[in-house]
């Protein structure tokens, strides 16, 4: 599983990044057309950079197992945030993990009016700091970006966070992505 995932991720990211080359923009028509109002300016995710290793967002984007997560990150407007210098440790649930949620959950969260809830859940999957799998210790508590704590357990060499299994890890330019097999829900607010 782990090996397969690695191969997959690297194949996809290699494709993404070798295909960049010197391709020219197809259109810059949207640029500089409006001088009286604020014009759009891209955040760090829009930086054109053919040299750097993929950041945590691009690692996820490069994985076919993370399309739901990527869509959610986009909907929650966290793409620029996660393209910042970090370092971030992202616990990235696979599509199947989202599929396992009660019917309608994901659709509901992707609605614009649920953006705050979606952000809260996604931010519960991010830790500021670069934690390799071997840095994670049994009983360790991580205070996640949304402010809530998540707990690490290590049993027979298998690392879990809140019961979700880490099934693979990919180093990114601004941190590390641990692939997990379940979506973590933040504890209910007191």
């Amino acid at each position: 599983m782990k090996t397969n995932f690695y191969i997959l991720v690297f194949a996809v990211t290699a494709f993404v990044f070798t295909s960049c080359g010197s391709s020219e923009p197809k259109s810059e028509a949207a640029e500089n057309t409006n001088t009286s109002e604020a014009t759009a300016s891209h955040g760090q995710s829009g930086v054109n950079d053919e040299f750097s290793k993929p950041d945590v967002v691009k690692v996820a984007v490069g994985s076919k197992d993370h399309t739901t997560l990527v869509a959610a990150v986009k909907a929650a407007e966290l793409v620029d945030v996660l393209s910042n210098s970090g370092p971030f440790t992202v616990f990235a649930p696979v599509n199947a993990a989202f599929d396992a949620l009660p019917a309608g959950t994901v659709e509901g969260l992707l609605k614009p009016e649920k953006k705050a809830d979606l952000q809260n859940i996604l931010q519960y999957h991010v830790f500021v700091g670069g934690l390799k799998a071997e840095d994670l210790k049994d009983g360790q508590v991580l205070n996640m970006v949304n402010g809530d704590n998540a707990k690490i357990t290590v049993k027979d060499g298998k690392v879990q966070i809140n019961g979700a299994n880490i099934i693979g890890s990919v180093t990114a330019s601004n941190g590390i992505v641990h692939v997990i097999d379940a979506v973590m829900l933040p504890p209910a607010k007191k």
Partner: protein
Amino acid sequence: MKHSIINKLNMNKWLTFFVLFSALFVSCTGKKKAGSAVSGDAAQKVYVAPGKYDELYLFNSGGFSGQVSAYGLPSGRLLKVIPVFSQNPENGYGYTEETKPMLMTSHGFIPWDDSHHPQLSRVDGNNDGRWLFINANNTPRIARLNLSTFTTEEIIELPNSGGNHSSPFCTENTEYVVGGTRFSVPIEGDLDVPINSYKQTFKGTLSFVKVEKEKGTMNLAFQLLVPGVNYDLARAGKGVSHGWVFFSCYNSEKANTLLEVNASQHDKDFVMAVNWKKAEEYIAQGKGKKTKAKYAHNVYSHSTHSATSTMLEDVLMLDVKELKDICYFIPCPKSPHGCDVNPSGEFIVASGKLAAVIPVFSFKKIQDAIAAKAFEGEFDGVPVIKYEAALAGEVEKPGLGPLHTEFDDKGFAYTSMFVSSEIVKWEVATRKIIDRVPTYYSIGHLCVPGGDNKNPYGKYVIALDKITKDRYLPTGPELTQSAQLYDITGEKMKMLLDFPTIGEPHYAQAIPAELVTKNQVKAYKLEENKHPYLTKMESEAKVVRNGKDIHIYMTMIRSHFTPDNIEGVKVGDVVYFHITNLEQDWDVPHGFAVKGANVSELLIMPGETQTIKWEPKEVGIFPFYCTDFCSALHQEMQGYLRISPASSKTPLMFGTNVAAVEKK
């Protein structure tokens, strides 16, 4: 399940998303230029016509460069780099005999340090434009710059500290500038201890440096011995909270390794409230202890145009474990950085780098909690006030990675968010978020002109950004960092301008220009020059041998040196060029360079004397010349120095426009 999601979702949205997605990440056609994100009248708002003055000075720290840079606002024009903690090839600071003592410490000469927080002096809680203080982060020091000359006049080292980060924030009337240990270290007794004995042996100190009212001379009045955590930033109280200073503290876990993880374990770290007037009372009662310490105090005189470095040997220490009512901890979520006091002095805003809220503490509630002993316990002998007892309220969901807050003149606060790379504007009274704007990219500190004053100037907020990537023409791997100017006069913040900076613009302060321009010195008066090697007029120019030492008393004026022909100097001699600029005219410095100079060049202001040491190693004729284009005949401003073999009998001779005259 997945199919069902897609079916239920708005297909258009998905299409749009995938088109964008593939454009950006797969086909990489997103090689687009950054948009400007500015509105149409931005150019007008930052345009300062040629020959016109800017409205404000912005004093930016140089971060890892160790210097300060002065910019004009709103234009963003760089006016000057002022050397402070690092040698500066532009004007010889830290190279010349006169300025080398400025960089002396108890560890010897330090050519390069790291400067973080400029702090303008204040009277009654408002900037007065006289001095600018800044900290050396690495080898703990505080410098005082004189804003009439834009030069560093004084540097005091802080002993018993392992990194002076929370510094040099000043009290309401510049009674004190403070320093706090970023890296706690063993201070008393055996210093050769295992690093993992941190919890038992490491301590922090908070330094209170007294600033003399008229001349600004600094003196380390006392230090507080405090628990061994990391002291990060500070602000003094003002108005109702005058007499107190608030320090943010992280690493309450007392970790000594991998702080990235191990110092993020506790849900709350602390803000430390320090009652310095109480400390003064204890000192008056003789309760401080004089303890041994070794630290340098360096002072530059514009009369002798020279610095002196004095090593001091003791400091007054107050142990806050014993003198309990000086310090109180207030729990504060997740590794607080900024610890900022609003204009009235009532609210203390702490920004936990990893916190999901911004707590706003009330000074009145803190006082009430202390009176009622509303403590949840003690941390290393210091009472910990209950969080709720000190709290006015929280700013909810402000953004990610809150770092630092400043205030405008209309009751609003502006907090920088590193992780989400934005500035968030919120109302102090209601703690409601009003607006947010992105920064490009990764903002650290921010600055509102007068934003730490009782009466902020407002009008702008300046974002100090760490990362610029594609914002400017590329310059190889090392890219500039940037400052971004936003108009805050309306409800919505509007980006006006960004401009590159020197080193890291770690923090900056801005001040209305007239508070600084009214005190400007145009040149140094020659008749007030008390330099021991002054040459007041050309007829006093001379070359003196003292054993191996050759002292050249030289003058410079448009467009020649006196003397400009010098002979009789030998290999093995040590030559000191003591050069006086005789000009008494605004903006006519002269430079000096001599071939093979291993130390530096000189840049000498009108009326000033500066010295470089030069050791000839080989026989020959060595030209020297003026390096600052001073006049129509600048290119003629030159001279020759003849170096003879060590055994030579050539007599010492010198002159200008005469055959070199033998010294009698």
